[in-house]
């Protein structure tokens, strides 16, 4: 349980950075850390004690492989979610560079032409 808890501390730190910090790049970093934390969480959910990677190598016993291997499905989910995180980050960086060009600052509290 403790390891899940530590992991959620990582998640909450990313969330805090995303919400409370004013610098645009800091916000992006918060997003990245949050993505990392959630990926790690999903992998931890599928870990089996003394587990081996879910890759069948030549000369390996099938039944033993099924017994020992970690859960493969979370890894699939994480592969997809890593890609999604990368895409979101690329879009965020593009928008923040464009914002910097328009406002000449990275400070979110000065980027406030919209009210509401």
């Amino acid at each position, binding site marked *: *349980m403790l*390891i*899940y808890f*530590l*992991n*959620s501390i*990582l998640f*909450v*730190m*990313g*969330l*805090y950075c995303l919400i*409370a*910090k004013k*610098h645009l*790049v*800091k916000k*992006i*970093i918060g997003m*990245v*850390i949050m993505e990392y934390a959630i990926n*790690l969480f999903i*992998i*931890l*959910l*599928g*870990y*089996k*004690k*003394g*587990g081996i*990677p879910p*890759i*069948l190598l030549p000369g390996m016993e*099938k039944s033993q*492989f*099924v017994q020992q*291997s970690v*859960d*493969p*499905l979370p*890894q*699939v989910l994480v*592969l*997809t979610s*890593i890609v*999604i*995180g*990368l*895409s979101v*980050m*690329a*879009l965020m*960086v*593009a*928008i923040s*560079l*464009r914002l910097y060009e328009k406002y000449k600052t*990275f400070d979110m*509290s000065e980027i406030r032409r919209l009210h509401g």
Partner: protein
Amino acid sequence: MLFLFYTLLIFCIIGSIIAIEARNILASVISAGVVGMALSILFLFLGAPDIAITQVVVEIIVLIVLIRSTVSLDNTAITKHRDTFAILSSLIFFGLFLVFAFMAFQGLPTFGEPIMSVGRQYLENSVNQTGASNVVMGILMDYRAYDTLGEATVIFTAILGAFVVLRAKGKKKKEESDKIRVGIPEKEDLPMSLDQIETSSDSTS
């Protein structure tokens, strides 16, 4: 083994504390990269080499793109408008979140003993049914290939979105041609071999 996991996680947490609280933005970016590196090793220890290798490449790309987004070296964080109330309230909210999360995690299966009701079926059948000895790829590209189509579409969307956002201007003026010459050199100007590069760079320097 478990001790290693805890140590690596604490490494990640310290790294992200530095990333969040560092004054210099470059320091934040680099510590985010450090967290990614440590995560890759953690994935390797957790028996997920596919994720580890993907995390490696993603971490490098994240590092490079984030470096591009910090525009100058002495780029310090903003401290003048520190909204104490907002920070305090968010900290209280996150504390509550952690407490509830801790209570909720009691209902999960113990660490190291997943349920694996579907996972076991995949492990048993995947190699015969899909022919891929890497079970993860077998699931990703065959059982759940529809997800992978979605994933490829997500990248496609994000890249298209980045291009759209980085356009020079959005709205046309009336009767104005919008064929703007781009900053990338013309096709004919591009050298096709190394010799041309080196001769031209000599002449310019």
